[in-house]
């Protein structure tokens, strides 16, 4: 089955891409997919402990199972809002 992966902010710069479409095995989890991508982009691994996952624009747990056609994003800690933190 196929999944689309989106990268933002620091992860986009590390991977040099905004979006990838990948073949993923049945039963793959979002965390499993992230670890697979760490083999391709080793610097991603530094982010694993801080990361949130989304599938089809909703936050999910790391063990969430993927379905064909899902859109996955790896979400670093967010930093929107004002300049006045």
């Amino acid at each position: 089955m196929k999944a689309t992966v989106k990268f933002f902010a620091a992860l986009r710069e590390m991977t040099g891409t905004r979006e990838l479409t990948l073949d993923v095995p049945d039963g793959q989890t979002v965390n499993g997919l992230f670890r697979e991508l760490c083999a391709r982009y080793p610097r991603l691994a530094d982010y694993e402990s801080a990361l949130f996952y989304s599938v089809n624009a909703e936050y999910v747990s790391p063990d969430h199972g993927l379905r064909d056609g899902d859109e996955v994003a790896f979400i670093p800690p967010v930093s929107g809002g004002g300049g006045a933190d």
Partner: protein
Amino acid sequence: MLIEITAGPLAPEPFLQHVRRDDSGAVALFLGVVRDNSVDAAGVRRRVLYLEYDAYLEMAEQKLREVAEEALSRWPITDVAIAHRIGRLEIGETSLLVAVSSPHRHEAFAACHHIVNRIKEVVPIWKKEVWEGGEAWIEGEPVGEK
């Protein structure tokens, strides 16, 4: 409710007009503004030249909507407008705008404060600081429950 993510400048007036009502005596407005300095992890202050915001647009719009709905269900407020800039922002420009109307001031202040805090926790938008001699994506505190 009005939710907007835009690469263009944010002017408050349309958002204030959107939330104000004749039956509501209070409008609270928060502006997040690009500051000309920041402090790094070692405590050293640096001069910021500009910011660049990246967003997961579809999800960010949906999360802003959820944050507004949460406030509307929690306080007796009348309406909410939220706007966030993306792309490059110069010093002094408005990056975030939150406007809340309510019959009385207390609820407008409380809901506005809550909305700004939640945006910084759950909305997938990131800022990169560019300063003299370097740049970095800023990462907020990881939050246990989204």
